């Protein structure tokens, strides 16, 4: 396995060894895909966006400079790709019924049906609640909770101060809590 750092690999890609992008792809495709699926709520859109990010990396490889951190740069490219795709679609993605069904099919099986049902319902509500947040809140939550990034790195990606990231995490979590409680209340009422 290639143990060269991401940064060194990207510098080599920049300088013409474009095949090294394959190693970076192997390392980052899954976290990047997860990032997009959590952001958009759509697996197909997630794959299209991952493809787009690696294409952009080739296109803009000259902008990667010595001293840049690869993951920070990658998520910056990823945000731009997501923003452009959102602009093309002219509306923010929310999970529709079909997508929710698709995602339910992805859930891991659980041996006890009752526990599984409760777990599945909670995941479904969480996904719904997350999808209902403004994109800025969703973004900061996904980056801090799932992408294994430090607040300092997130600040670099979002182009703001570390203090601002921390405040956004707090605010976004509060929004998610409110949304989740709302949806859970509606669900209980429907039942």
């Amino acid at each position, binding site marked *: 396995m290639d143990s060269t750092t991401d940064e060194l690999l990207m510098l080599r890609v920049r300088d013409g060894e474009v095949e090294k992008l394959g190693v970076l792809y192997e390392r980052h495709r899954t976290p990047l895909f997860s990032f997009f699926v959590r952001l958009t709520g759509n697996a197909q859109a997630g794959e299209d966006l991952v493809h787009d990010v690696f294409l952009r990396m080739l296109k803009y490889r000259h902008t990667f400079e010595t001293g840049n951190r690869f993951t920070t740069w990658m998520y910056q490219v990823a945000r731009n790709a997501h923003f452009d795709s959102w602009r093309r679609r002219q509306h923010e993605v929310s999970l529709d019924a079909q997508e929710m069904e698709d995602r339910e099919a992805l859930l891991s099986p659980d041996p006890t049906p009752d526990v599984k049902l409760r*777990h599945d319902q909670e995941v479904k509500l969480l996904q719904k609640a997350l999808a209902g947040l403004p994109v800025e809140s969703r973004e900061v939550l996904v980056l801090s909770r799932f992408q294994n990034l430090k607040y300092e790195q997130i600040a670099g990606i979002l182009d703001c101060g570390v203090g601002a990231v921390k405040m956004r995490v707090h605010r976004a979590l509060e929004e998610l809590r409110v949304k989740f409680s709302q949806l859970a209340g509606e669900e209980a009422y429907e039942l």
Partner: protein
Amino acid sequence: MNCDRVKELFADYLIGNLDEIAKAEVDAHLAGCASCREETRSLQTVWKKLAALPEERPSPELDIRFHAMLEAYRQGMKQADRDASPRVTLSDWLSGLWPRQPALQFAVAVVLFALGLLLGPAFTQRERNNTAGGGGTNDRALAQLREEVSNMKEMVTLALLQQSSASERLRGVHWSYQLEQPDREVLSALLRALDSDPNVNVRLAALDALQQFARNAQVKQGLLDSLPRQQSPLVQIELINLMVELKEKESVPVLKALLQNSELNSSVRERAEWGLQKLG
């Protein structure tokens, strides 16, 4: 410690990022403040709940797409390198075949004309048959392939236009000729090259390349904007020629403004006056 300070430290508290002293201070505040305690507890619960969201994995289809894209890009780069190496061009080769004697030139032209008359209908018939018999799937696949190839060409063009060596950027400009309908990004890169490339040859080549898209609104505006900004008289003259050729009335005020400049190069002045006369 007050409630606002607890909010500020919350994100670090959440992930265990606080040093012992700060953590003890937050804990002490939470012990005495029911509202902060309740808020922190509920947010921690939501944070933990998020762990339940399943890890998503892309399909193998994505790997295939990625590797195809990377390979196409590499091929594009190789092709660009080959194009840059000195070689005999098709036009050099054809001109070598062309006889010097006018009488022989006429004879060759007649023979070629006759061949065209004989072979032309046969080829067009075959083409028509192929079109009629072609399946929809093949057409779609072909259209997709064309699009992918076009994307690759655009990428190679952009990559070359951003290189530091002038000869590489020239290659980028030449690559743009392979694009039937370049996107905004390529057109912007060509306009940038025309406007501000330090090498005048690259600027001239960019102007040549842009001529074919001069009816495009973005290109037309870019060309008009570039005229007064140009440092090179040669490029300015070429731009004026193009405006006249296109009978571009919108260039009249630009040319008039150009003539107001007392330091304008005399050849450019002459050409601008000629241009105004033609367009007027």
